[in-house]
């Protein structure tokens, strides 16, 4: 096969991008050093910090709400509609809205990104809990369990797969969008993507690679967590099904 260098030119940018991640280099504008493990780790840490704060806030709000609604089997309309409406939220409008109407900085940015995580977490918590087999709940009641006990020891464990699917969707929504925090007062890997002048194409592509890898890593971690949290009986039942 005759592949001219032109066809593979784009590979050079990817090579340069990895080089940017592992080695410090002079900025496009000169006189200062950018890239390298130190800066990359700092920005990655920042990116994760914002992600976990927002995911934590979203989970703290949406999970109890969804679980309680599911337990009471109330508010189905609201829970399902919220999940659907969540998909229609334009991320850029959300961050602009928060920046202009509330303010910038870590706290405000956390609110904005938490909003992206709430719909899937709440909807899935509702669906997961409300679909728990009635017989299992009745059996627990027969054994003398009451409201909170039933939720914690019967419904939550049985709903783990659905709930975790919601948290995973929420987490991906958040970590994928957190780069926009770099427009609103918080450094993240978005600094690289938005700073083409100083970081060059290699910096921009490095930022994109890092965000993609980070998302993948978070997915894998949450999948493992889901595996750990799922009751053994449920795993066996699934494997058998």
């Amino acid at each position, binding site marked *: 096969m005759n592949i001219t260098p032109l066809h593979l030119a784009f590979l050079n940018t990817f090579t340069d991008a990895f080089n940017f991640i592992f080695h410090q280099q002079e*900025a*496009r*504008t*000169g*006189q*200062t050093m*950018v890239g390298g493990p130190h800066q990359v780790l700092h920005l990655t840490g920042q990116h994760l910090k914002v992600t976990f704060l927002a995911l934590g806030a979203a989970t703290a709000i949406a999970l109890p709400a969804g679980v309680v609604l599911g337990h009471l089997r109330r508010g189905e*309309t*609201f829970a*399902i*509609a*919220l999940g*659907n*409406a969540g998909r*229609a939220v334009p991320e850029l409008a959300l961050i602009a*809205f928060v*920046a*202009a*109407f509330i*303010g*910038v*900085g870590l706290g405000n940015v956390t609110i904005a990104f938490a909003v992206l995580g709430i719909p899937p977490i709440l909807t899935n918590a509702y669906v997961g809990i409300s679909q728990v087999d009635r017989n299992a709940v009745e059996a627990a009641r027969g054994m003398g369990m009451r409201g909170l006990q039933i939720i914690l020891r019967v419904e939550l464990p049985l709903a783990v797969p659905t709930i975790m699917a919601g948290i995973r969707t929420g987490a991906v929504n958040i970590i994928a969008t957190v780069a926009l925090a*770099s*427009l*609103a*007062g*918080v*450094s993240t890997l*978005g*600094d690289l993507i*938005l*700073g*083409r*002048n*100083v*970081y*060059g194409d290699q910096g921009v592509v490095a930022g994109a690679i890092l965000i993609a890898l980070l998302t993948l890593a978070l997915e894998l971690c949450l999948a493992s967590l889901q595996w750990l949290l799922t009751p053994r009986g449920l795993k066996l039942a699934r494997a058998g099904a």
Partner: protein
Amino acid sequence: MVTCHSRLRAAFAFLAAMVVAIGVAACGGGDNDNDTGTSGANSANLIKSNPANNGIQITVGSKNFTEEYILGNIYAQALQAAGYDVKTNLNLGSEVIAYKALQDGEISGYPEYTSTLLESIFGAKTVPADAQAAYAQAQQQLQPKGETAFAPTPFADANALGMLTSKANELGVTKISDLQGKSQDLNLYGSPECRERTDCLVGLQDVYGLQFKSFNPVDIGLRYTVLDKGQADASILFTSDAQLFANPDKYTLLQDDKHIFPAGNPIWVTDQSTVQTAGPDYQATIEKVQKGLTNAVMQELNARVDIDKQDPAAVATQYLKEDGYIQ
């Protein structure tokens, strides 16, 4: 059925929530001022349409912030008035993207600040303070590449370190070097790339020896918002910003006593082949139409866009009419 209605309701609830949340402060439009001070316009300024230019295509580029939008629109409308067949591409993200678009032939030219061109594109360590000297240096770099530039505009723009006047008084600072021993308590805001630029954070650290409590990246549209809300103690501003001009007492620019913020005058950067094919009216029109762009006028035009929220294209037309370049 259930799903459909509930979704619809949720969607409207969402919209309603948005509207309520902001508390509709419906105030009548009040910014449609029809400036009519054109009667005394100098008719010698009038750009005449030359039939020889018909059918010659020129694509005007600009970067994506207020001052560049206005400049791009002024040049585009002026060239159109001179009879050229004008297209525009006024949303080029940064100097890297804009200069590459010129090299790739996607645009015929765009306005670039001499300081930015020399430092960011050509890697110069220092930029001459004199506009003509900076222009000459830019030409030396552009000519061998088959490019060229037209004369600089009268106005210049530069980065500046700004704070609320109340904060500056409280700290008792008037120049940047006064911040020594105080900067470690200050939160600095600037564009994301400011962190790595010598005409920004790097210069403040290396030349002035300042360490700030934090550096926070924001979209350039939010640099005044963060000062107003008290989130930023200091922010990197542009000297031609409309907000400075509208609120002269509210903000204070600290004097750059060690000269890390070079001022730059925009020059029209273009390629020599366009100059050849477009004929003499190309350069003549651009250099003529920018003559009225003094510091005060440029601030006024920026204010019409940034404060009065008028359309950059409409503001460009107002400028051309008020100065008598078009009728």
